[in-house]
């Protein structure tokens, strides 16, 4: 059974890459939106752009993964093809994990291009291991968040609208453009409940070659968020097929 599930996950990810990665909602929300934000910040103040880079990379991870989830899940919910996957000898959690990994992989590709492009353009040298340690759990956490929200609606546009609420809340409260430490105390407490805060903080450590211990702690917290979103997503999807 485990072999069936692993095979199912692999081919679901592979099929989603071929089928959905070039869909307009994935391109516009997952690639164009973060790239436009980055360009806007760069053009406004090229000198201090380096300070904003961790936040903007974090935002890229958030948007690319969640946008991809909306596409890989909601296109199939709308057309009924998600059921097709469930007719195969693959368990429902395995199908959802396949969908989450599909979104995370799309996010990884976008984030790699954005991070590498920005680092080369600015001449900065982030710590690669730290980057990997923080980016991978972030991709998983935000892909799971996307899956959790997307399984509760049917249409892609509904999913993108629903996703914008946590996206924009996190952009403003998680230190993407404005440091958490400079925010009012009450908002700082709110920020600690948001996974993007830990991504931004971990990326700051990676770009400044900071503490490995801090990076590991942020990574563990992000893995915790991954699980927090994953299990309710299983529950919601299962409810759809009761």
């Amino acid at each position, binding site marked *: 059974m485990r072999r069936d599930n692993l095979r199912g996950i692999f081919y679901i990810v592979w099929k989603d890459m071929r089928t959905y990665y070039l869909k307009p909602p994935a391109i516009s929300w997952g690639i164009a939106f973060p790239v436009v934000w980055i360009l806007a910040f760069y053009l406004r103040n090229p000198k201090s752009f380096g300070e904003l880079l961790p936040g903007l990379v974090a935002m890229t991870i958030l948007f690319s993964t969640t946008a991809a989830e909306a596409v890989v899940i909601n296109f199939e919910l709308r057309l009924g093809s998600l059921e097709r996957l469930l007719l195969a*000898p693959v368990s429902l959690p395995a199908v959802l994990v396949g969908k989450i990994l599909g979104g995370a992989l799309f996010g990884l590709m976008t984030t790699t291009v954005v991070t590498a492009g920005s680092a080369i353009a600015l001449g900065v040298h982030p710590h690669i291991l730290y980057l990997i340690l923080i980016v991978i759990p972030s991709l998983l956490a935000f892909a799971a968040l996307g899956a959790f929200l997307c399984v509760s609606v049917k249409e892609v546009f509904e999913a993108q609208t629903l996703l914008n609420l946590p996206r924009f809340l996190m952009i403003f409260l998680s230190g993407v453009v404005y440091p958490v430490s400079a925010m009012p105390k009450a908002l700082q407490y709110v920020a600690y409940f948001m996974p993007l805060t830990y991504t931004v903080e971990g990326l700051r450590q990676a770009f400044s070659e900071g503490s490995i211990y801090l990076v590991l702690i942020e990574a563990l917290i992000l893995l915790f968020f991954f699980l927090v979103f994953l299990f309710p997503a299983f529950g919601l999807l299962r409810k759809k097929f009761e």
Partner: protein
Amino acid sequence: MSNQRAIQVSGLTKYYGETLALDHISFEVERGEIFGFLGPNGAGKTTTIRALTGLSRLTSGEALILSLDVRSEILEIKKHIGVVPEISNLYDELSAFDNLLFMAQLFGVPRSQRRARVEALLKMFGLFERKNSLFRTLSRGMKRSLTIASALVHNPQILFLDEPTAGLDVLAAHSLRNLIHNLREQGITIFLTTHYLEEADFLCDRVAILLKGKILKVGTPDSLKAMAEEEPVMEFTFPRGNSRIVKGLSLKLPELKVIPVDDTRIRIYGGTPSYVLKSVLEFSKEKGVEMLSVNSIKPSLEDAFIKITGLSPTVMRVEKEKRTNAAG
């Protein structure tokens, strides 16, 4: 329970919230037969397929597929069944070939056999020439054929078909019915749902008539027709707009069933032919309605359906038109 049975269902009940969709249904399907679920919209046909294939949970009751329990062994069951949903839901962005290849990968068809199996199915369904065409560019009939082919990539022992010919034109539906017949010749057990009476009659070895979540009757098409044969059926043709005539005749002959077949034809079930003919002639004279023709009818599955359910076949026809329009 015998191992000769492909499907064994006992007391299957399904609630959606407060709504009772299936009410303690029980039936068995023999290996190698074509078994049909016949009923109007909302009868519970699709719900039964969903419950038996793991797409929804049973509220209560027992269901065994190839002697495996649907509740606890569904992943093992899925290796041996193919399911064709009512909507042809393959991937628009993939070609005919890639769609079948993906299903073969998902079902674990050995790598060395995948391409040959996919090509054989494309040939069998007459789609080999279109193997590189994207799914979205295929005609409705081709999409349906490809969806059935996709359910066969792993050589299933049982094929579930939900309304296989809904929305297809006459020619495509005819060719698909022949294909389904051929699948049975290959030893595949087929469980299909339909609201097309003639389809059930042509294809099925046995039929279960389903209404409001309950099985009313199970039997061969011939045995069901024989039930209708017990009472005579006479068909009268009047000019268009016969609802007034049906109403009038129902009042005149309250002990008989007066059922409209379409806008001009009426069937009367029961009574002796001489009594029915005399009464209708009287009615025709009293009301000044011209009778165009009269026939004594050899019962069809449609007549059996009417007798068993008390429904007019127009209910099924209206549903058929709705589905055709929706699919178009």
